[in-house]
Protein backbone atom coordinates (compact mmCIF):
# COMPACT_ATOMS: atom_id res chain seq x y z
CA UNK A 1 0.00 0.00 0.00
CA UNK A 2 2.71 2.45 0.97
CA UNK A 3 4.56 1.84 -2.31
CA UNK A 4 1.40 2.72 -4.19
CA UNK A 5 1.03 5.90 -2.13
CA UNK A 6 4.67 6.66 -2.73
CA UNK A 7 4.21 6.34 -6.50
CA UNK A 8 1.02 8.34 -6.32
CA UNK A 9 2.91 11.13 -4.64
CA UNK A 10 5.69 11.04 -7.26
CA UNK A 11 3.09 11.12 -10.01
CA UNK A 12 1.42 14.16 -8.47
CA UNK A 13 4.72 16.07 -8.39
CA UNK A 14 5.57 15.07 -11.97
CA UNK A 15 2.05 15.90 -13.11
CA UNK A 16 2.31 19.35 -11.54
CA UNK A 17 5.44 20.12 -13.52
CA UNK A 18 3.93 18.75 -16.75
CA UNK A 19 0.80 20.81 -16.16
CA UNK A 20 2.70 24.08 -15.79
CA UNK A 21 4.68 23.52 -18.99
CA UNK A 22 1.65 22.25 -20.92
CA UNK A 23 -0.54 25.16 -19.78
CA UNK A 24 1.82 27.68 -21.36
CA UNK A 25 1.89 25.74 -24.57
CA UNK A 26 -1.86 25.34 -24.77
CA UNK A 27 -2.46 29.05 -24.00
CA UNK A 28 -0.14 30.07 -26.81
CA UNK A 29 -1.80 27.63 -29.16
CA UNK A 30 -5.23 28.87 -28.20
CA UNK A 31 -4.39 32.51 -28.80
CA UNK A 32 -1.89 32.38 -31.64
CA UNK A 33 -2.66 29.00 -33.28
CA UNK A 34 1.07 28.35 -33.22
CA UNK A 35 2.41 25.02 -32.01
CA UNK A 36 5.44 26.55 -30.36
CA UNK A 37 8.19 23.97 -30.81
CA UNK A 38 10.54 26.36 -29.04
CA UNK A 39 8.61 25.85 -25.81
CA UNK A 40 10.98 23.09 -24.68
CA UNK A 41 13.84 25.49 -25.35
CA UNK A 42 12.26 28.09 -23.08
CA UNK A 43 11.81 25.42 -20.42
CA UNK A 44 15.48 24.47 -20.66
CA UNK A 45 16.53 28.11 -20.62
CA UNK A 46 14.49 28.62 -17.46
CA UNK A 47 16.47 25.96 -15.63
CA UNK A 48 19.77 27.46 -16.79
CA UNK A 49 18.80 30.99 -15.81
CA UNK A 50 17.92 29.77 -12.33
CA UNK A 51 21.23 27.94 -12.17
CA UNK A 52 23.08 31.07 -13.29
CA UNK A 53 21.27 33.26 -10.76
CA UNK A 54 22.06 30.81 -7.98
CA UNK A 55 25.74 30.43 -8.83
CA UNK A 56 26.82 33.86 -10.08
CA UNK A 57 24.41 36.19 -8.31
CA UNK A 58 24.38 34.03 -5.18
CA UNK A 59 20.73 34.76 -4.51
CA UNK A 60 18.29 32.39 -2.80
CA UNK A 61 16.18 29.83 -4.64
CA UNK A 62 12.99 31.89 -4.74
CA UNK A 63 14.58 35.10 -6.11
CA UNK A 64 16.49 32.98 -8.63
CA UNK A 65 13.27 31.33 -9.74
CA UNK A 66 11.52 34.68 -10.10
CA UNK A 67 14.44 36.20 -12.00
CA UNK A 68 14.45 33.26 -14.36
CA UNK A 69 10.68 33.50 -14.87
CA UNK A 70 10.91 37.19 -15.72
CA UNK A 71 13.87 36.63 -18.03
CA UNK A 72 12.20 33.84 -19.98
CA UNK A 73 8.92 35.77 -20.10
CA UNK A 74 10.67 38.76 -21.66
CA UNK A 75 12.41 36.55 -24.19
CA UNK A 76 9.15 34.80 -25.08
CA UNK A 77 7.40 38.15 -25.58
CA UNK A 78 10.27 39.29 -27.78
CA UNK A 79 9.97 36.08 -29.78
CA UNK A 80 6.30 36.78 -30.37
CA UNK A 81 7.03 40.31 -31.57
CA UNK A 82 9.98 39.50 -33.82
CA UNK A 83 9.03 36.09 -35.21
CA UNK A 84 5.50 34.87 -34.66
CA UNK A 85 3.62 38.13 -35.07
CA UNK A 86 5.06 38.83 -38.55
CA UNK A 87 4.33 35.22 -39.51
CA UNK A 88 0.71 35.20 -38.32
CA UNK A 89 -0.72 35.15 -41.85
CA UNK A 90 1.89 32.83 -43.38
CA UNK A 91 1.06 29.17 -44.19
CA UNK A 92 0.83 27.34 -40.90
CA UNK A 93 4.03 25.32 -41.43
CA UNK A 94 6.10 28.51 -41.47
CA UNK A 95 5.76 29.50 -37.80
CA UNK A 96 6.32 25.85 -36.91
CA UNK A 97 9.60 25.80 -38.82
CA UNK A 98 10.62 29.13 -37.30
CA UNK A 99 9.94 27.73 -33.84
CA UNK A 100 12.14 24.74 -34.65
CA UNK A 101 14.86 27.21 -35.64
CA UNK A 102 14.55 28.94 -32.27
CA UNK A 103 14.73 25.60 -30.44
CA UNK A 104 17.90 24.72 -32.40
CA UNK A 105 19.41 28.07 -31.60
CA UNK A 106 18.67 27.98 -27.86
CA UNK A 107 20.02 24.47 -27.48
CA UNK A 108 23.18 25.18 -29.45
CA UNK A 109 23.73 28.43 -27.61
CA UNK A 110 23.41 26.89 -24.15
CA UNK A 111 25.58 23.88 -24.95
CA UNK A 112 28.30 26.02 -26.50
CA UNK A 113 31.48 25.62 -24.44
CA UNK A 114 31.73 29.36 -23.87
CA UNK A 115 28.19 29.60 -22.47
CA UNK A 116 27.28 26.65 -20.23
CA UNK A 117 28.82 23.73 -22.12
CA UNK A 118 27.26 20.36 -22.91
CA UNK A 119 27.80 18.86 -19.43
CA UNK A 120 24.94 18.66 -16.97
CA UNK A 121 24.62 21.05 -14.05
CA UNK A 122 23.24 20.40 -10.61
CA UNK A 123 21.03 22.67 -8.54
CA UNK A 124 20.95 22.03 -4.79
CA UNK A 125 17.55 21.39 -3.22
CA UNK A 126 16.27 24.54 -1.53
CA UNK A 127 14.53 22.39 1.08
CA UNK A 128 16.63 19.25 1.58
CA UNK A 129 15.46 16.32 3.63
CA UNK A 130 12.44 14.07 3.86
CA UNK A 131 9.26 13.79 5.86
CA UNK A 132 7.57 10.63 6.96
CA UNK A 133 3.81 10.53 6.74
CA UNK A 134 2.28 7.26 7.90
CA UNK A 135 5.02 5.09 6.39
CA UNK A 136 5.27 7.09 3.18
CA UNK A 137 8.54 8.90 2.65
CA UNK A 138 8.12 12.25 0.98
CA UNK A 139 10.91 14.60 -0.04
CA UNK A 140 10.39 18.27 0.72
CA UNK A 141 11.34 19.10 -2.84
CA UNK A 142 8.45 17.08 -4.22
CA UNK A 143 6.06 18.57 -1.69
CA UNK A 144 7.31 21.98 -2.75
CA UNK A 145 6.66 21.13 -6.39
CA UNK A 146 3.13 20.00 -5.69
CA UNK A 147 2.34 23.03 -3.54
CA UNK A 148 3.92 25.50 -5.94
CA UNK A 149 2.29 24.06 -9.03
CA UNK A 150 -1.14 24.02 -7.41
CA UNK A 151 -0.61 27.60 -6.29
CA UNK A 152 0.46 28.74 -9.76
CA UNK A 153 -2.46 26.91 -11.38
CA UNK A 154 -4.94 28.53 -9.00
CA UNK A 155 -3.38 31.91 -9.67
CA UNK A 156 -3.58 31.35 -13.41
CA UNK A 157 -7.20 30.28 -13.13
CA UNK A 158 -8.01 33.42 -11.14
CA UNK A 159 -6.21 35.53 -13.71
CA UNK A 160 -7.99 33.97 -16.68
CA UNK A 161 -11.46 33.90 -15.15
CA UNK A 162 -11.61 36.89 -12.84
CA UNK A 163 -9.51 39.66 -14.34
CA UNK A 164 -10.21 41.71 -17.43
CA UNK A 165 -6.76 41.09 -18.93
CA UNK A 166 -7.21 37.38 -18.40
CA UNK A 167 -10.61 37.50 -20.03
CA UNK A 168 -9.05 39.05 -23.15
CA UNK A 169 -6.85 35.96 -23.50
CA UNK A 170 -9.88 33.68 -23.26
CA UNK A 171 -11.77 35.87 -25.69
CA UNK A 172 -8.99 35.81 -28.23
CA UNK A 173 -8.63 32.05 -28.07
CA UNK A 174 -12.37 31.69 -28.62
CA UNK A 175 -12.55 34.02 -31.59
CA UNK A 176 -9.73 36.17 -32.87
CA UNK A 177 -11.81 38.38 -35.13
CA UNK A 178 -14.54 38.76 -32.54
CA UNK A 179 -12.00 39.78 -29.93
CA UNK A 180 -10.65 42.47 -32.21
CA UNK A 181 -14.18 43.69 -33.00
CA UNK A 182 -14.95 44.35 -29.35
CA UNK A 183 -11.78 46.40 -29.05
CA UNK A 184 -9.26 43.95 -27.62
CA UNK A 185 -5.68 44.78 -28.55
CA UNK A 186 -4.75 41.40 -30.02
CA UNK A 187 -1.09 42.37 -30.35
CA UNK A 188 -0.81 43.01 -26.65
CA UNK A 189 -2.68 39.82 -25.79
CA UNK A 190 -0.36 37.81 -28.04
CA UNK A 191 2.75 39.14 -26.32
CA UNK A 192 1.22 38.72 -22.89
CA UNK A 193 0.30 35.11 -23.61
CA UNK A 194 3.80 34.32 -24.80
CA UNK A 195 5.25 35.98 -21.70
CA UNK A 196 2.99 33.96 -19.39
CA UNK A 197 3.84 30.74 -21.19
CA UNK A 198 7.57 31.49 -20.86
CA UNK A 199 7.23 32.29 -17.17
CA UNK A 200 5.28 29.07 -16.52
CA UNK A 201 7.92 27.00 -18.33
CA UNK A 202 10.71 28.66 -16.35
CA UNK A 203 8.95 28.08 -13.03
CA UNK A 204 8.33 24.43 -13.86
CA UNK A 205 11.93 23.89 -14.96
CA UNK A 206 13.34 25.57 -11.86
CA UNK A 207 11.10 23.48 -9.59
CA UNK A 208 12.12 20.13 -11.06
CA UNK A 209 15.77 21.08 -11.65
CA UNK A 210 16.97 20.03 -8.15
CA UNK A 211 15.57 16.51 -8.78
CA UNK A 212 16.70 16.04 -12.37
CA UNK A 213 19.98 17.35 -13.71
CA UNK A 214 20.03 20.47 -15.87
CA UNK A 215 21.15 19.59 -19.41
CA UNK A 216 20.90 21.34 -22.78
CA UNK A 217 18.73 18.52 -24.13
CA UNK A 218 16.24 18.53 -21.23
CA UNK A 219 13.90 20.66 -23.33
CA UNK A 220 13.60 18.14 -26.16
CA UNK A 221 12.05 15.38 -24.10
CA UNK A 222 9.80 17.82 -22.25
CA UNK A 223 8.74 19.32 -25.56
CA UNK A 224 7.48 15.99 -26.82
CA UNK A 225 5.71 15.20 -23.59
CA UNK A 226 3.85 18.48 -23.32
CA UNK A 227 2.86 18.29 -26.97
CA UNK A 228 1.53 14.81 -26.32
CA UNK A 229 -0.36 16.25 -23.36
CA UNK A 230 -2.01 19.07 -25.25
CA UNK A 231 -2.94 16.81 -28.15
CA UNK A 232 -4.47 14.46 -25.59
CA UNK A 233 -6.33 17.25 -23.87
CA UNK A 234 -7.32 18.99 -27.08
CA UNK A 235 -5.06 21.73 -28.41
CA UNK A 236 -5.87 25.08 -26.84
CA UNK A 237 -7.92 23.65 -23.97
CA UNK A 238 -6.83 24.73 -20.47
CA UNK A 239 -8.61 22.04 -18.42
CA UNK A 240 -7.56 19.53 -21.06
CA UNK A 241 -3.89 20.41 -20.52
CA UNK A 242 -4.15 19.89 -16.76
CA UNK A 243 -6.00 16.59 -17.00
CA UNK A 244 -3.68 15.43 -19.81
CA UNK A 245 -0.63 16.32 -17.72
CA UNK A 246 -1.70 14.27 -14.73
CA UNK A 247 -2.87 11.44 -16.98
CA UNK A 248 0.56 11.28 -18.61
CA UNK A 249 2.37 11.55 -15.28
CA UNK A 250 0.31 8.74 -13.75
CA UNK A 251 0.76 6.50 -16.80
CA UNK A 252 4.50 7.12 -16.80
CA UNK A 253 5.07 6.63 -13.09
CA UNK A 254 2.86 3.56 -12.71
CA UNK A 255 3.78 2.16 -16.12
CA UNK A 256 7.46 2.68 -15.35
CA UNK A 257 6.97 1.02 -11.97
CA UNK A 258 4.90 -1.98 -13.00
CA UNK A 259 6.10 -2.57 -16.57
CA UNK A 260 9.57 -1.25 -17.35
CA UNK A 261 11.46 1.88 -16.46
CA UNK A 262 13.32 1.78 -19.79
CA UNK A 263 10.18 2.41 -21.71
CA UNK A 264 8.53 4.87 -19.33
CA UNK A 265 9.10 7.58 -21.91
CA UNK A 266 7.51 5.51 -24.66
CA UNK A 267 4.42 4.55 -22.66
CA UNK A 268 3.12 8.08 -22.86
CA UNK A 269 3.44 8.09 -26.63
CA UNK A 270 1.83 4.69 -26.92
CA UNK A 271 -1.10 6.13 -24.99
CA UNK A 272 -1.15 9.08 -27.35
CA UNK A 273 -1.24 6.81 -30.42
CA UNK A 274 -4.17 4.88 -28.97
CA UNK A 275 -6.12 7.99 -28.06
CA UNK A 276 -5.54 9.61 -31.43
CA UNK A 277 -6.63 6.47 -33.23
CA UNK A 278 -9.92 6.57 -31.33
CA UNK A 279 -10.50 10.28 -30.84
CA UNK A 280 -8.40 12.36 -33.28
CA UNK A 281 -9.57 15.68 -31.84
CA UNK A 282 -8.30 14.84 -28.34
CA UNK A 283 -10.16 13.88 -25.22
CA UNK A 284 -11.71 17.22 -24.33
CA UNK A 285 -12.66 18.81 -27.56
CA UNK A 286 -15.79 18.37 -29.55
CA UNK A 287 -15.34 17.33 -33.18
CA UNK A 288 -13.59 19.82 -35.43
Amino acid at each position, binding site marked *: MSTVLQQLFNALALGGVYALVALGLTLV*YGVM*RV*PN*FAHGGLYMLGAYLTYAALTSLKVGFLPALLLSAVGVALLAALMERV*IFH*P*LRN*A*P*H*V*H*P*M*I*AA*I*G*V*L*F*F*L*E*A*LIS*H*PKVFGPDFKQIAEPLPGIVNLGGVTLTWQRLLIIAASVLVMLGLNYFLKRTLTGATIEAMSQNREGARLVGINTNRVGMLTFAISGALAAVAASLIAPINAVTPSMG*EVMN*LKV*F*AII*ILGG*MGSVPGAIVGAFLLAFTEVFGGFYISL*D*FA*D*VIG*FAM*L*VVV*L*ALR*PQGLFRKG*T
Partner: protein
Amino acid sequence: MSRLIWPALFVLAAVVPFLQPSGYLLDVGVNIMLWAVLAYGLNVMLGYTGLLPLAHAGFFGIGAYTTGILTLKAGWSFWLAWPAGIALAALAGLLLGLVAFRTRGDAFSIFTLGVGVIITLVINKWDDLTGGNDGLNGVPAPAGLEEASRAIGLKLSGGFYLLALLTLALTVMIAARARASSFGLSLLAIRGGEDLARSAGVNVYTHKLRAMMLSTALAGLAGGLYATYVGFLGSAVTGPTTTFTVLLYLLVGGLGTLAGPLLGTALIYSLTQTLKGLQDYQYIVFGPLLVLLVMYAPHGLAGLWARLRAARPARAAKTKEVSGA
Protein backbone atom coordinates in the same frame (compact mmCIF):
# COMPACT_ATOMS: atom_id res chain seq x y z
CA MET B 1 15.66 23.62 -73.23
CA SER B 2 15.00 23.06 -69.53
CA ARG B 3 14.23 19.46 -70.36
CA LEU B 4 17.85 18.97 -71.36
CA ILE B 5 19.38 20.63 -68.29
CA TRP B 6 18.90 17.68 -65.94
CA PRO B 7 20.30 14.96 -68.25
CA ALA B 8 23.21 17.25 -69.17
CA LEU B 9 23.89 17.90 -65.50
CA PHE B 10 23.89 14.22 -64.66
CA VAL B 11 26.19 13.34 -67.58
CA LEU B 12 28.58 16.08 -66.50
CA ALA B 13 28.48 14.86 -62.90
CA ALA B 14 29.15 11.31 -64.08
CA VAL B 15 32.39 12.40 -65.71
CA VAL B 16 33.77 13.80 -62.43
CA PRO B 17 35.19 10.56 -60.91
CA PHE B 18 37.13 9.86 -64.12
CA LEU B 19 39.07 13.13 -63.72
CA GLN B 20 40.84 11.64 -60.69
CA PRO B 21 39.52 14.06 -58.09
CA SER B 22 40.63 13.79 -54.46
CA GLY B 23 38.88 11.24 -52.27
CA TYR B 24 37.61 14.11 -50.15
CA LEU B 25 35.83 15.73 -53.07
CA LEU B 26 34.17 12.43 -53.98
CA ASP B 27 33.08 11.95 -50.38
CA VAL B 28 31.46 15.39 -50.27
CA GLY B 29 29.75 14.57 -53.57
CA VAL B 30 28.35 11.26 -52.32
CA ASN B 31 27.13 12.88 -49.12
CA ILE B 32 25.41 15.71 -50.95
CA MET B 33 23.61 13.29 -53.27
CA LEU B 34 22.63 11.00 -50.42
CA TRP B 35 21.15 13.73 -48.24
CA ALA B 36 19.55 15.31 -51.28
CA VAL B 37 17.58 12.08 -51.81
CA LEU B 38 16.24 12.43 -48.26
CA ALA B 39 15.44 16.08 -48.95
CA TYR B 40 13.48 15.01 -52.06
CA GLY B 41 11.55 12.61 -49.87
CA LEU B 42 10.69 15.38 -47.42
CA ASN B 43 9.78 17.63 -50.34
CA VAL B 44 7.03 15.25 -51.47
CA MET B 45 5.28 15.83 -48.14
CA LEU B 46 6.18 19.39 -47.25
CA GLY B 47 6.64 20.90 -50.70
CA TYR B 48 3.88 19.15 -52.65
CA THR B 49 1.31 18.26 -50.00
CA GLY B 50 1.94 21.13 -47.57
CA LEU B 51 2.27 18.88 -44.51
CA LEU B 52 5.27 18.98 -42.21
CA PRO B 53 6.26 15.47 -41.10
CA LEU B 54 9.01 15.41 -38.49
CA ALA B 55 9.87 11.71 -38.47
CA HIS B 56 11.86 11.53 -41.68
CA ALA B 57 15.17 10.73 -40.05
CA GLY B 58 13.36 7.82 -38.41
CA PHE B 59 12.33 6.40 -41.79
CA PHE B 60 15.83 7.05 -43.05
CA GLY B 61 16.92 4.99 -40.05
CA ILE B 62 14.47 2.19 -40.84
CA GLY B 63 15.89 1.95 -44.36
CA ALA B 64 19.45 2.15 -43.11
CA TYR B 65 19.09 -0.35 -40.27
CA THR B 66 17.08 -2.83 -42.35
CA THR B 67 19.80 -2.76 -45.00
CA GLY B 68 22.53 -2.96 -42.37
CA ILE B 69 20.97 -5.78 -40.37
CA LEU B 70 20.01 -7.88 -43.38
CA THR B 71 23.48 -7.65 -44.96
CA LEU B 72 25.44 -7.93 -41.74
CA LYS B 73 23.44 -10.40 -39.67
CA ALA B 74 21.32 -12.34 -42.18
CA GLY B 75 23.97 -12.38 -44.90
CA TRP B 76 21.68 -10.97 -47.57
CA SER B 77 23.10 -9.35 -50.65
CA PHE B 78 22.93 -5.56 -50.55
CA TRP B 79 20.95 -5.59 -53.79
CA LEU B 80 18.15 -7.46 -51.99
CA ALA B 81 18.49 -5.79 -48.61
CA TRP B 82 18.25 -2.29 -50.08
CA PRO B 83 14.81 -2.81 -51.69
CA ALA B 84 13.70 -4.57 -48.51
CA GLY B 85 14.72 -1.50 -46.50
CA ILE B 86 12.85 0.78 -48.88
CA ALA B 87 9.75 -1.41 -48.72
CA LEU B 88 9.84 -1.51 -44.93
CA ALA B 89 10.25 2.27 -44.70
CA ALA B 90 7.27 2.74 -47.03
CA LEU B 91 5.22 0.25 -45.03
CA ALA B 92 6.08 2.03 -41.79
CA GLY B 93 5.11 5.29 -43.49
CA LEU B 94 1.77 3.78 -44.44
CA LEU B 95 1.15 2.63 -40.86
CA LEU B 96 2.08 6.03 -39.48
CA GLY B 97 -0.14 7.72 -42.03
CA LEU B 98 -3.13 5.56 -41.16
CA VAL B 99 -3.08 6.97 -37.63
CA ALA B 100 -1.45 10.37 -38.15
CA PHE B 101 -3.78 11.49 -40.96
CA ARG B 102 -6.69 11.26 -38.59
CA THR B 103 -5.27 14.46 -37.15
CA ARG B 104 -4.95 17.65 -39.15
CA GLY B 105 -2.35 20.33 -39.67
CA ASP B 106 -0.42 21.10 -36.52
CA ALA B 107 -1.29 17.98 -34.60
CA PHE B 108 0.04 15.92 -37.52
CA SER B 109 3.51 17.48 -37.23
CA ILE B 110 3.65 17.03 -33.48
CA PHE B 111 2.43 13.46 -33.74
CA THR B 112 5.09 12.56 -36.32
CA LEU B 113 7.76 14.21 -34.19
CA GLY B 114 6.74 11.88 -31.36
CA VAL B 115 6.84 8.87 -33.66
CA GLY B 116 10.31 9.90 -34.85
CA VAL B 117 11.53 9.92 -31.28
CA ILE B 118 9.96 6.50 -30.64
CA ILE B 119 11.77 5.08 -33.69
CA THR B 120 15.10 6.44 -32.43
CA LEU B 121 14.42 5.17 -28.91
CA VAL B 122 13.54 1.69 -30.15
CA ILE B 123 16.68 1.58 -32.32
CA ASN B 124 18.74 2.77 -29.37
CA LYS B 125 17.32 0.28 -26.86
CA TRP B 126 16.90 -2.87 -28.98
CA ASP B 127 20.47 -4.06 -28.38
CA ASP B 128 20.12 -7.55 -29.87
CA LEU B 129 18.92 -6.35 -33.22
CA THR B 130 20.44 -2.92 -33.74
CA GLY B 131 23.52 -3.00 -31.50
CA GLY B 132 21.97 -0.33 -29.29
CA ASN B 133 24.39 2.38 -28.24
CA ASP B 134 27.38 0.71 -29.91
CA GLY B 135 25.60 0.73 -33.25
CA LEU B 136 26.21 -1.56 -36.22
CA ASN B 137 29.78 -1.79 -37.41
CA GLY B 138 31.09 -3.02 -40.75
CA VAL B 139 28.09 -2.92 -43.07
CA PRO B 140 29.66 -4.33 -46.26
CA ALA B 141 29.93 -2.48 -49.56
CA PRO B 142 27.49 -3.67 -52.24
CA ALA B 143 28.60 -6.99 -53.77
CA GLY B 144 30.34 -6.50 -57.10
CA LEU B 145 30.62 -2.72 -56.78
CA GLU B 146 34.39 -2.82 -56.33
CA GLU B 147 34.89 -5.17 -59.31
CA ALA B 148 32.58 -3.08 -61.46
CA SER B 149 34.38 0.13 -60.54
CA ARG B 150 37.75 -1.41 -61.30
CA ALA B 151 36.49 -2.61 -64.66
CA ILE B 152 35.85 1.01 -65.69
CA GLY B 153 39.10 2.23 -64.15
CA LEU B 154 37.80 3.64 -60.86
CA LYS B 155 38.36 2.97 -57.21
CA LEU B 156 35.56 1.86 -54.88
CA SER B 157 34.94 5.50 -53.90
CA GLY B 158 34.31 6.31 -57.56
CA GLY B 159 31.89 3.39 -57.75
CA PHE B 160 30.01 4.69 -54.72
CA TYR B 161 29.87 8.10 -56.34
CA LEU B 162 28.29 6.67 -59.48
CA LEU B 163 25.86 4.58 -57.44
CA ALA B 164 24.80 7.67 -55.51
CA LEU B 165 24.47 9.61 -58.76
CA LEU B 166 22.25 6.91 -60.24
CA THR B 167 20.13 6.91 -57.08
CA LEU B 168 19.79 10.67 -57.22
CA ALA B 169 18.91 10.60 -60.92
CA LEU B 170 16.22 8.01 -60.22
CA THR B 171 14.90 10.13 -57.36
CA VAL B 172 14.76 13.31 -59.43
CA MET B 173 12.99 11.41 -62.20
CA ILE B 174 10.43 10.00 -59.78
CA ALA B 175 9.90 13.41 -58.19
CA ALA B 176 9.45 15.09 -61.59
CA ARG B 177 7.04 12.46 -62.87
CA ALA B 178 5.07 12.38 -59.63
CA ARG B 179 4.65 16.11 -59.72
CA ALA B 180 3.53 16.25 -63.34
CA SER B 181 1.05 13.38 -62.91
CA SER B 182 -2.54 13.73 -61.77
CA PHE B 183 -1.32 12.35 -58.44
CA GLY B 184 1.03 15.32 -58.05
CA LEU B 185 -1.66 17.77 -59.07
CA SER B 186 -3.98 16.30 -56.45
CA LEU B 187 -1.26 16.80 -53.85
CA LEU B 188 -0.88 20.44 -54.87
CA ALA B 189 -4.64 20.78 -54.54
CA ILE B 190 -4.42 19.40 -51.00
CA ARG B 191 -1.68 21.90 -50.22
CA GLY B 192 -3.99 24.66 -51.41
CA GLY B 193 -6.71 23.59 -49.03
CA GLU B 194 -7.93 20.20 -47.92
CA ASP B 195 -11.61 21.00 -47.91
CA LEU B 196 -11.41 22.64 -51.30
CA ALA B 197 -9.52 19.65 -52.71
CA ARG B 198 -12.10 17.30 -51.28
CA SER B 199 -14.97 19.23 -52.79
CA ALA B 200 -13.17 19.13 -56.13
CA GLY B 201 -13.28 15.35 -55.95
CA VAL B 202 -9.80 14.56 -54.67
CA ASN B 203 -9.67 11.63 -52.29
CA VAL B 204 -7.62 13.50 -49.70
CA TYR B 205 -6.96 10.63 -47.28
CA THR B 206 -5.76 8.19 -49.96
CA HIS B 207 -3.60 10.78 -51.66
CA LYS B 208 -1.99 11.80 -48.41
CA LEU B 209 -1.26 8.15 -47.67
CA ARG B 210 0.31 7.67 -51.10
CA ALA B 211 2.38 10.82 -50.69
CA MET B 212 3.54 9.58 -47.31
CA MET B 213 4.56 6.21 -48.75
CA LEU B 214 6.49 7.79 -51.61
CA SER B 215 8.12 10.20 -49.21
CA THR B 216 9.17 7.55 -46.71
CA ALA B 217 10.27 5.17 -49.48
CA LEU B 218 12.69 7.86 -50.67
CA ALA B 219 13.88 8.26 -47.08
CA GLY B 220 14.51 4.50 -46.98
CA LEU B 221 16.34 4.69 -50.31
CA ALA B 222 18.69 7.31 -48.88
CA GLY B 223 19.04 5.29 -45.65
CA GLY B 224 20.11 2.09 -47.41
CA LEU B 225 22.71 3.95 -49.42
CA TYR B 226 23.98 5.62 -46.26
CA ALA B 227 24.32 2.26 -44.50
CA THR B 228 26.47 0.69 -47.18
CA TYR B 229 28.48 3.83 -47.89
CA VAL B 230 29.38 4.81 -44.33
CA GLY B 231 29.55 1.21 -43.12
CA PHE B 232 28.64 2.22 -39.58
CA LEU B 233 25.20 2.93 -38.14
CA GLY B 234 24.45 4.71 -34.86
CA SER B 235 21.05 5.65 -33.52
CA ALA B 236 21.94 9.36 -33.35
CA VAL B 237 21.62 9.81 -37.11
CA THR B 238 17.97 8.71 -36.94
CA GLY B 239 17.05 11.49 -34.48
CA PRO B 240 15.25 14.82 -34.87
CA THR B 241 18.47 16.74 -35.49
CA THR B 242 18.87 14.97 -38.83
CA THR B 243 15.26 15.75 -39.75
CA PHE B 244 15.78 19.41 -38.90
CA THR B 245 19.03 19.60 -40.85
CA VAL B 246 17.39 18.15 -43.95
CA LEU B 247 14.49 20.53 -43.41
CA LEU B 248 17.02 23.36 -43.55
CA TYR B 249 18.50 21.97 -46.79
CA LEU B 250 15.03 21.85 -48.30
CA LEU B 251 14.08 25.35 -47.19
CA VAL B 252 17.30 26.86 -48.46
CA GLY B 253 16.82 25.21 -51.84
CA GLY B 254 13.14 25.90 -52.21
CA LEU B 255 10.00 24.03 -51.14
CA GLY B 256 8.02 22.22 -53.79
CA THR B 257 10.54 22.78 -56.56
CA LEU B 258 12.45 20.17 -58.50
CA ALA B 259 15.90 21.74 -58.21
CA GLY B 260 15.45 23.01 -54.64
CA PRO B 261 16.34 19.92 -52.58
CA LEU B 262 19.57 19.32 -54.53
CA LEU B 263 20.53 22.99 -54.59
CA GLY B 264 19.94 23.50 -50.87
CA THR B 265 21.73 20.31 -49.84
CA ALA B 266 24.74 21.08 -52.05
CA LEU B 267 25.05 24.61 -50.73
CA ILE B 268 24.56 24.01 -47.01
CA TYR B 269 26.43 20.71 -46.88
CA SER B 270 29.50 22.09 -48.65
CA LEU B 271 29.33 25.22 -46.47
CA THR B 272 29.37 23.17 -43.28
CA GLN B 273 32.28 21.15 -44.68
CA THR B 274 34.37 24.21 -45.47
CA LEU B 275 33.51 25.89 -42.17
CA LYS B 276 34.45 22.84 -40.11
CA GLY B 277 36.33 25.04 -37.65
CA LEU B 278 33.04 26.63 -36.74
CA GLN B 279 31.39 23.34 -35.77
CA ASP B 280 30.51 24.68 -32.33
CA TYR B 281 28.66 27.55 -33.91
CA GLN B 282 26.95 25.45 -36.59
CA TYR B 283 23.48 25.31 -35.06
CA ILE B 284 23.79 28.76 -33.51
CA VAL B 285 23.89 29.93 -37.14
CA PHE B 286 21.47 27.36 -38.58
CA GLY B 287 18.66 28.11 -36.12
CA PRO B 288 18.33 31.82 -36.93
CA LEU B 289 18.92 30.97 -40.61
CA LEU B 290 15.84 28.74 -40.54
CA VAL B 291 13.83 31.57 -38.97
CA LEU B 292 15.07 34.18 -41.46
CA LEU B 293 14.32 31.86 -44.37
CA VAL B 294 10.67 31.30 -43.52
CA MET B 295 10.25 35.00 -42.77
CA TYR B 296 11.94 36.55 -45.78
CA ALA B 297 12.58 33.87 -48.39
CA PRO B 298 10.09 31.05 -47.83
CA HIS B 299 10.64 29.78 -51.38
CA GLY B 300 14.40 29.45 -51.04
CA LEU B 301 16.97 29.76 -53.79
CA ALA B 302 14.72 28.26 -56.44
CA GLY B 303 12.03 30.78 -55.50
CA LEU B 304 14.45 33.68 -55.80
CA TRP B 305 15.51 32.44 -59.23
CA ALA B 306 11.90 32.13 -60.36
CA ARG B 307 11.17 35.64 -59.10
CA LEU B 308 14.15 37.05 -61.00
CA ARG B 309 13.03 35.35 -64.18
CA ALA B 310 9.47 36.52 -63.73
CA ALA B 311 10.66 40.08 -63.13
CA ARG B 312 12.41 40.37 -66.49
CA PRO B 313 9.50 40.30 -68.98
CA ALA B 314 7.56 42.63 -66.70
CA ARG B 315 10.25 45.25 -67.02
CA ALA B 316 10.33 44.84 -70.79
CA ALA B 317 6.59 45.41 -71.02
CA LYS B 318 6.89 48.63 -69.06
CA THR B 319 9.45 50.21 -71.39
CA LYS B 320 7.24 49.41 -74.34
CA GLU B 321 4.36 51.22 -72.73
CA VAL B 322 6.49 54.30 -72.14
CA SER B 323 7.77 54.42 -75.71
CA GLY B 324 4.20 54.01 -77.01
CA ALA B 325 3.06 57.03 -75.02
